[in-house]
């Protein structure tokens, strides 16, 4: 790459407590310098970022790219490009593909496809247990060697507490993050939405908060017991947030996610059986939604992650109970986070960058990412916080359109996304 000088933007990098108008020089795939009045080196491309915000590239540690096996929903290529369009420079792919990612070869395939995608960087995760069946650990060491950054049985809980304890203890060898989808299936009872008055009226089986709470409680205890790194995915309940807050105060090594849909919507969005509001964990009550917001504010939920879950329209065009769980999120996350959390005064802009870049990079130990410190990877998001736009799913780069946010007015948008110093996405309004 030729050097890139991003000039005159407001540089917000919470990893070095930086929030000032400055220039950012990228060279050889790294951040060469951040400062005022940097001269463009010979042959450098200059980007005028005046009026825009320049941040370390956004990192989404929870996406489903569906490849291998479900390429009618999404591919690694389309997912990585959708991520770039959403301002993400790195995504971490969940392993519940078909076949699931439980061997080094599949990890290598995802890594290779990601390198060719021309979008955000793609890092694979491996399963905790073979076939996500909850019975036998995968070869963590082999998976890491092939390029996996974490293990998770996401989409499914690790039902056995004994098995998760083994996983956490075994992960200590590699200091590997273990990410968990918290759901006690005997309490969830094949429910399809939040348990509450909306489910009762609609005649849908509810998933109680308790299905998530008891597993979060159990796994925090196990993380404390083992001393391993626990990453709690998509927290949706008020007690879950509180349990994590208390565990962090005790020094338990836990990171935790909030999704844009859980801090934006409630189960009222399911009215009229809208399958684009069906996801797991489900949209919950207002009290839960507010607790998730507060968790993001105080850092209990240190990571904003999308749980980007593309589905083909045929699959969502079914009776509510028959439709699959999940919504796409890569191309709406930044706008939702800004509109719902920053514009409302819940968090300031540097905190948004922390939750969407610095903290997720740290949670998954992604060296060189989530920072614009000199020597970091030249992954940069340039965004326009004044942009006002309306979500139009037809414009998504993702192959899927399953979002409850179509038609929603949002503020803030990525105008340019650079990975390793190369522009991988540029919006029509980019400067």
């Amino acid at each position, binding site marked *: 790459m030729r050097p890139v000088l991003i000039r005159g933007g407001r540089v917000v990098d919470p990893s070095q407590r930086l929030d000032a108008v400055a220039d950012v020089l990228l060279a050889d795939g790294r951040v060469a310098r951040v400062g005022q009045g940097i001269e463009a080196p010979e042959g450098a491309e200059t980007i005028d970022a005046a009026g825009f915000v320049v941040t370390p590239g956004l990192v989404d540690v929870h996406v489903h790219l569906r490849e291998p096996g479900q390429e009618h929903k999404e591919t690694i290529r389309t997912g990585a490009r959708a991520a770039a369009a959403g301002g993400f420079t790195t995504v971490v792919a969940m392993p519940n593909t078909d076949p699931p990612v439980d061997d080094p070869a599949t990890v290598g395939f995802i890594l290779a496809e990601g390198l060719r995608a021309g979008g955000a960087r793609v890092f694979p995760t491996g399963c905790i247990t073979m076939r996500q069946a909850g019975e036998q650990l995968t070869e963590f060491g082999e998976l890491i060697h092939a390029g996996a950054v974490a293990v998770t049985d996401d989409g499914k809980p690790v039902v056995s507490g004994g098995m998760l304890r083994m996983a956490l203890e075994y992960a200590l060898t590699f200091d590997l993050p273990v990410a968990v989808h918290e759901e006690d299936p005997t309490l969830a009872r094949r429910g399809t939405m939040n*348990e*509450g*008055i909306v*489910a*009762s*009226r*609609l*005649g*849908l*089986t*509810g998933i*109680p908060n308790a299905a998530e709470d008891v597993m979060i409680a159990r796994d925090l205890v196990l993380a404390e017991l083992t001393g391993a790194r626990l990453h709690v995915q998509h927290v949706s309940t008020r007690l879950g947030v509180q349990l994590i807050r208390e565990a962090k105060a005790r020094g338990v090594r836990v990171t935790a996610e909030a999704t844009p849909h859980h801090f934006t919507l409630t189960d009222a969005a399911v009215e*009229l*059986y809208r399958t684009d509001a069906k996801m797991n964990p489900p949209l919950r009550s207002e009290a839960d939604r507010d607790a998730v917001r507060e968790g993001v504010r105080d850092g209990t939920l240190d990571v904003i992650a999308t749980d980007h879950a593309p589905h083909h329209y*045929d699959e969502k*065009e*079914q*009776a*509510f*109970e*028959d439709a699959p769980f999940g919504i796409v999120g890569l191309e709406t996350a930044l706008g939702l986070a800004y509109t719902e959390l920053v514009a409302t005064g819940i968090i300031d802009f540097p905190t948004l960058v922390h939750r969407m870049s610095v903290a997720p990079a740290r949670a998954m130990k992604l060296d060189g990412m989530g920072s614009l410190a000199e020597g970091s990877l030249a992954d940069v998001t340039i965004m326009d916080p004044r942009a006002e736009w309306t979500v139009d799913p037809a414009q998504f780069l993702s192959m899927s359109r399953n979002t409850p946010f179509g038609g929603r007015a949002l503020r803030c948008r990525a105008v340019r996304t650079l990975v390793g110093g190369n522009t991988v996405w540029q919006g029509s309004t980019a400067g």
Partner: protein
Amino acid sequence: MPHAVTPSLGKDLLGLEGLTAGQITAILDTAEAFKEISERPVKKVPVLRNKTIVNAFFENSTRTRISFEFAEKRLAADTVNISSTGSSVAKGETLVDTARNLEAMRIDMVVIRHGASGSAQFLADRIASSVINAGDGKHEHPTQGLLDLLTIRDHRGPLEGLKVCICGDVLHSRVARSNIHGLRKLGAQVGVCGPATLLPAQVGEMGVTVFRRIEEAIEWADVLNVLRLQLERMTGGFIPSLREYNRVFGVTRARVEAAPRDLLILHPGPMNRGVEIDSDVADGPHSVILQQVTNGVAVRMAVLYLLAGGQPEQAEAAKTGGGE
């Protein structure tokens, strides 16, 4: 004329939650006029002549399907029945494709029974024909709710202030939800009674009083609507045994006789005699269970007639062939 300006039902009948008291009363009044047809030697009037109706039953049903069929035939509609076995549905066709195929055959109405809550809404959103919900999952069963209202009204007059308790497996019951909405809209007070394992979460927010004990419910109520206990609820762990269910929650003769008021007892059928209701109650003087079945045909005739564009005021004239 009791209804000088009658609110139209709109295109579909999906549930009672979406109806006004005026609309519900209009259906009941129309049903009242149609009751007499079933008592004639020639039980047929040309009200729905040249209308085509599909009865799409994706779930087993005997009584509701037959009740709809009689209602349609007595109004002279052309009807076709499809069921899940032996149809394209069994071959994996999606609900949306079934809907589009029905639509393509230019039918006027679909009566749908389906195991998924919201399936009637799903169909109604996608086809121009009228959709009548004959039971969607655990959501609503509006014609059952209407026939229950009509039966109560027949015996007790206006429902305003009447205390009606719905007893049993409210959690899985579409009948319960339609009853709760319909009764409340007409001004009745509604109670529910059953083990907490079989009551929906936050059911109190639907505007009902929750009774933990059947004795307390009977003490309170003017009317009991006793729901069928699906026998698989026992294997599902909701109750320990049918024997214990009958002992703790059963509507027994002793309990009914101990009631402070003359109870009216309904049951949507089919009954599990000796489980949720004892035979001597079901067959006894308080029971109006068979009249519910009779009223079911009249209510369904009324719904078909109104959705086809008929006016309640003209129901009498329509019966003699004068209305069109």
